[in-house]
């Protein structure tokens, strides 16, 4: 595989995302603020909490990671893709020797770098102000984060491939993004919701990511791994839609 231009493309797209206020707010500032504001309510270890030494910020951290991933993948990818298609940027890239695979890989890599930045900010703030800890395996944590990134990027590119204009893309991503904030166990337990809504909550792609990440942070046995099947389903769906519907112009 010829990868000429890959790093330059990934780095340049990363920088362009940093110049996009919506991206910086939703996928870097918002998750950090969310964790900090709720975390500040109880920054001391929760008395009687079954996980010794953990506080509210620790409970929120996995959700914060999820928010970084979802916001970056759902705002960045579809809006960049549709904007670039509408303005003819994709077509312009296509008359260069840049390979399609390099292009796809480069865009993906740029989002990866952006998400890593958002997650680092969360960890740094969490460490300094709230003493967040990871009791489980770091390898599992990183593996799970990468799986989440890939899944949501596939879904983001699916939206960007199906939807024609960036305006529509912006509306569609909000339709997915906002309910997931509330329904994916980020801070409101799914058991709070009516019975009919609970299966929907569990089927959302962010729920399993959040559940498994939280198990890793808490260092408890990973007995929810079956939920990864739900994510894998979304990953396959997103990839198939992207491959089937992707258009250059």
């Amino acid at each position, binding site marked *: 595989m010829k990868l000429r231009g890959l790093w*330059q493309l990934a780095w340049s797209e990363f920088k362009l995302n940093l110049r996009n206020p919506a991206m910086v707010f939703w996928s870097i500032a918002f998750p950090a603020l969310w964790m900090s504001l709720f975390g500040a309510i109880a920054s001391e270890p929760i008395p009687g909490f079954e996980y010794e030494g953990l506080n509210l910020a620790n409970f929120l951290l996995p959700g914060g990671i999820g928010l970084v991933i979802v916001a970056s993948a759902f705002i960045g990818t579809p809006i960049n893709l549709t904007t670039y298609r509408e303005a003819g940027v994709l077509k312009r890239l296509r*008359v260069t020797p840049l390979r399609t695979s390099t292009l796809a890989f480069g865009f993906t890599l740029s989002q990866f770098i952006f998400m890593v930045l958002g997650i680092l900010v969360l960890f740094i703030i969490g460490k300094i102000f709230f003493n967040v800890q990871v009791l489980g395996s770091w390898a599992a944590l990183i593996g799970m984060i990468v799986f989440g990134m890939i899944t949501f990027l596939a879904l983001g590119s699916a939206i960007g491939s199906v939807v024609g204009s960036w305006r529509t893309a912006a509306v569609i991503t909000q339709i997915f993004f906002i309910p997931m904030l509330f329904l994916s166990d980020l801070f409101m337990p799914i058991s709070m919701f009516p019975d009919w809504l609970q299966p929907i909550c569990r089927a959302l792609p962010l729920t399993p990511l959040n559940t498994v990440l939280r198990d890793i942070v808490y260092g408890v046995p990973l007995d929810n791994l079956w939920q990864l099947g739900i994510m894998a389903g979304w990953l396959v769906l997103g990839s198939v839609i992207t491959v089937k519907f992707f258009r250059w112009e």
Partner: protein
Amino acid sequence: MGSIVECQHVTRSYGSLIAVNDISLTIEEGEIFGLVGPNGAGKTTLIEMIEGLRTPDSGSIKALGLDPTKQGDELKEKIGVLLQATSIQPDIKVREALKLFASFYQHALSNTEELLHTLSLEDKADSRFKKLSGGLKQRVAIALALVNDPEILFLDELTTGLDPQARRNMWDFVEKTRAEGKTIFLTTHYMEEAEKLCDRVGIIDYGKIIALDTPRNLVSNLGTESKVTFNIEDKDIDASKFEGIKAVSRVEKGKDGFILYTKDENITLQELVRMADAQKFRLSNLHTESPNLDDVFLTLTGREMRE
């Protein structure tokens, strides 16, 4: 010098619309070739097939000896393309864009700064693309097309939407680029531009090339007469007085004054001035109109340019 692009019986349809209809065409190395025609005539479809962006339904294309469909990757290394009305990443800075595009090629110019200088973009090197005026954007697009030091430069609608000054800058630039030995294939719907810039012009309409020659030959083959127009203010003179002037075939008296139709405007003018001197009448608003590519186009297609 040999041919650098060869199209043979190229056809491409979109549904029931035949965008390019059995076009055969050769472009010689080192020339500026212009494809002119109204919007929707098939210019962009044809140029994009040569660039490898679209595939012909039938016929064959060779550019630099390569098949754009099968050897597109190799071809893209050697051509420079300015697409019609396309943009690059809105928030990218000019210098970043040049470096990014240069990174896509095996043999890119090692010094993109020089390219900024050539196109007088140094002042704008750190500006975001979306903040630039139309003329500057077009200059950036050209810089990007030159980043791999291409053998052929494809310029689709180079000056559409530019103000007259920016348009003239583009013309100067095209001529300079050709002087460096590059072949240029451009499309335009401004006849004036084709006449000024191109060594050869192909006129395309409804997907077919209806004329192809040097601008001068196209005009002279048309056989249309020039018009000499003037007013006479201080005397009442009958139109028939001018009928005897050399090369004049017909005289009209219209609202703008007299119109002499002539096969040779130089001879006619000389004699007209002499006559005015001898008979003491004063010519005013004297001007001549020679046929140009517009007339060629209108005569060949029998309709006004759309847009």
